Structures are given as C-alpha cells and as structure tokens.
C-alpha cells in the first residue's frame, strides 16, 4: 500500500515537472547509469582532469609542508618524516582491499560490469600501495628500531595483505574468460574480507613491537597539531591519488573489455 503511494507521489512529482534530478534520484536511474561502462567513461573524461589537478595540489602542499615546514620529532629527528608516506599508504592499502571487495560484491549481486572492472583494477593498485607501505616501513625501521625487518604484528599483517592482493591478481590472470575471472576474483576477495579482521587480530595477539596508533578519533591524539595538519593534507592527497589511479585504470579496463563496441571505436577515433 504505502510503497505504491510513494511511487504515485514520485510520478506526480515528475508530472508536475518538479525537477528531473529528484525524479532520477528516487527512481534509481543513477544506479543503472553508474553500471554502464559507457556512461562512466564519458563522465570520467570530464571529471578526471579536475580530480588530477586537485590531487596534485594536495600532494604538493602536503609534501612541502610535511618535509620542510613541519617540526622534526624530538626523538626520531627527521627520519620521522617517513611517517607522512608510510601511514597514508598503509591505511589506503587496507581501505583499497575493501573497495575491491565491495566492488566484487556489487558485481556478483547485480552483475554490474563496471563493478567487475573496478574490482580487477583495484587489485594491482592496492598491491603497489601495500608494497610502498612495507618498503617505507623498512626504511623507517632501520634508524628507529635498528633493523630493516621485524616479524612484528602489523608488519606481518601487511605482508599477508600483500599476498592476498597477489592472490587476486594471479587468479585474475589465470582465467581466459573475463566473466569467469570476475566471479572468481569476487568470491576470493569476499573470502579475504571475512578473513582480514581475523588475520589482523590473530597476528596482533602473536607479538607486538609496533608503536600503538597515535591518531585516534575518540580520544585525545598523541600527535602534535603541527605534525597532524600536514598529515591530513597529504593523506587527502593520497586518497585522491588512489581515486585518480583507480579511475584511470578503470577507463583502460573499459576500453580493453569493450573494444568491439561501436561507442569505443567512435571515442578512440575522436
């Protein structure tokens, strides 16, 4: 009863001409649009340059602020500045796994081709970020812990995360049929999602040398504001970089997947 009434009122909105945008929002047409690789390709052609400029600005300001202006640490000296690369890449590599898994779930449930492409393109980017986090951690570990590598809880979980990414990439490459590989990777990344918290908790329990997290949202942070603001700027920059890389790779993936279609040919001839 009620649902039909809602639909009736939506239709009257449409009839009264109260705005196409409201109508589109309520009728889920954005959802269908978003599932279309063609719409996404054209949309991202317009958005990507702006996003790239914004990303470059944030990164530039963040890097200068973090490396030149922010005060050095009283114990670690200048070596603490690796923090500004290490922490954002580590955080986004973990977030990236969830981006990949959610895209996989969407492609499994709604058979959305675009989500499938996003999932596959998210894997190598995430693996690269995980590698950067591990590498910068090793470089940071030498002056502060006195060793490149320790089998500490968070280092070990990052290593496992790296292999979870490698598994998805390897599985993707193993199939010839893109539809099959999409489903297989989606299942694997969902299994990984269930496992990540378990892996993190069990490795945490195993041994710990890593400093506890210093940035907390619920209580007072132990990081000085002069160090925190450049961190926020550079983290935003890294998130934007992730978005730009993902969108650019997805566009490439769309072209590869849809190269037989008319619209791709017409875009490429332009």
């Amino acid at each position, binding site marked *: 009863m009620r649902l039909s009434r809602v639909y009736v009122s939506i239709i009257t909105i449409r009839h009264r001409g109260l705005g196409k945008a409201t109508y589109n929002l309520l009728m889920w047409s954005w959802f269908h649009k978003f599932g279309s690789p063609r719409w996404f390709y054209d949309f991202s052609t317009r958005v990507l340059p702006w996003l790239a400029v914004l990303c470059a600005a944030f990164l530039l300001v963040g890097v200068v602020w973090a490396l030149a202006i922010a005060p050095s640490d009283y114990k670690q000296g200048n070596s603490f500045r690796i923090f500004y690369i290490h922490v954002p890449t580590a955080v986004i590599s973990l977030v990236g796994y969830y981006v990949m898994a959610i895209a996989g779930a969407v492609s499994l449930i709604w058979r959305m081709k675009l989500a499938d492409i996003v999932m596959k393109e998210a894997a190598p980017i995430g693996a690269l970020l995980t590698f950067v986090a591990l590498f910068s951690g090793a470089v940071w570990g030498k002056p502060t812990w006195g060793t490149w590598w320790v089998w500490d809880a968070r280092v070990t979980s990052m290593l496992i995360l790296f292999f979870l990414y490698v598994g998805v990439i390897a599985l993707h490459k193993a199939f010839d049929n893109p539809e099959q590989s999409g*489903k297989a990777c989606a299942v694997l990344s969902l299994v990984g999602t269930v496992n990540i918290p378990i892996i993190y908790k069990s490795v945490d329990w195993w041994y710990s040398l890593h400093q506890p997290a210093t940035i907390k949202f619920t209580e007072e942070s132990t990081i000085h504001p002069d160090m925190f603001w450049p961190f926020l700027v550079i983290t935003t920059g890294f998130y934007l970089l992730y978005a730009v890389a993902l969108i650019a790779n997805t566009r490439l993936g769309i072209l590869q997947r849809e190269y037989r279609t008319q619209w791709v040919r017409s875009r490429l001839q332009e």
Partner: protein
Amino acid sequence: MAGKTIIKAVLRREFLLSVRNASASLNGVWFFVLVCGLFAIGIGPDKEQLGGLAPGLIWVTALLAVMLSVDALFRHDYADGSLEQLLLAAHSLYFLVLARLMAQALLIAVPLALVSPLLALMLGMKAAGLPVLILSLLLGVPTLVMIGAIGAALTVGFERGGLLLALLVLPLYVPVLIFAAAAVVSAADGYTYAGQLMILAAQFVLAVALSPLAVVAGLRLNYYH
C-alpha cells in the same frame, strides 16, 4: 535442506573412495613424515634445537600436506562430469558440499593426528605437548580443509592449479597456524593452552558455517558459459 539419504550417500561415497584407493589417501601422510624428516636433516640433528622448533615445523608441514591433498578435492569429479551432476541435483548444494567437506576433513585430519606424536618425539618435542598437538590437529586441520576447498573450487578448471592454489590459500591459513602452534608451544612449556584451543574451535565453527557458501559459488562459476 537436502534429504538425509543423499547426505548419507555422499558420506558413504567419500569413505568408500578413500578406502578403495587407500594408497592415494596415504600420500598425504607420507608427505607429512618425509618433510618433517627433511627439516631435521636441513637444520641438523641437535635435539635441543629441533625440540623447540618442533611445534612450528610440524604445523607448517601439516598445513602444506592439507593444501596438497585439498588440491585434488574436486578435480576428479570435475573431469568425469559427476560434479556437474551434483550441481544439477535438486538438493541444496550447501549441505551436499558441507557433507563432502566434513568427510574429507575427517579423512585428512585423523591420519595426520595419529602420526604426529611419532614425529614430535622424533624431533625431540617435550612429551607434555603431545596430547595438545593431537587435539590441535583434530581441531585445526578441518578448518584448513574448509578454507582450502574454496581455493580448490576456484581453481578446479585449471589442469595444474597447485601453485596458484598455494598463493590463494596459504595467506588465509595464518590464523589457524598462529593459534595451533601457540597452543602446542604453551602446552610443551607447561603453560595453559585452553584459550588457544577454544579460538581454534571458534575458527572451525566459522569455517563450517561460511566456507560451503564460497565453495558452491566457486564450483558454479566453472560452468558459466
């Protein structure tokens, strides 16, 4: 839910197959013993040192043995078409797969658990850890079979899926390895180990509930055309 008869039939088939082809079923056990021997040869005969390493060595070897056994879990049935018949059956695939995994878990875990005390003593592990080693294998190996089956289902279409399977599955084995090895080490050193075993049991329960879902999805996609 699938009828009781079909679950019984699946269980009967698994056990019959393993009894009729006993030498293939024993390969995993031989592998287990052999690799533990290789560790001893590689590390050196010092029993002090080997005894300390034994819980970890035995568990890593057991984990590899399970992974290699699980690789063949669906391959035969895929090749001869009986897997397709199973997927076409009018019964809930979840319970069919679950029955099959339970049978395989039992068939893989029990022999490994039975041989493990012998290996532990050969490697010089303290005798106090033996009962917990057996218990940890009985609790942990079924979880490994359940997780490994997901990888086996995803790679069943490839003729040689072994290395790929390792890459997919081994990272997911980490939690089981941590708690199982920790339980054995604690017990061998005379500390309490109930907590670790309970966490192993919890992981088993979670794996039983969730992994058949992923296995079913993984098997289905091989018939997608």
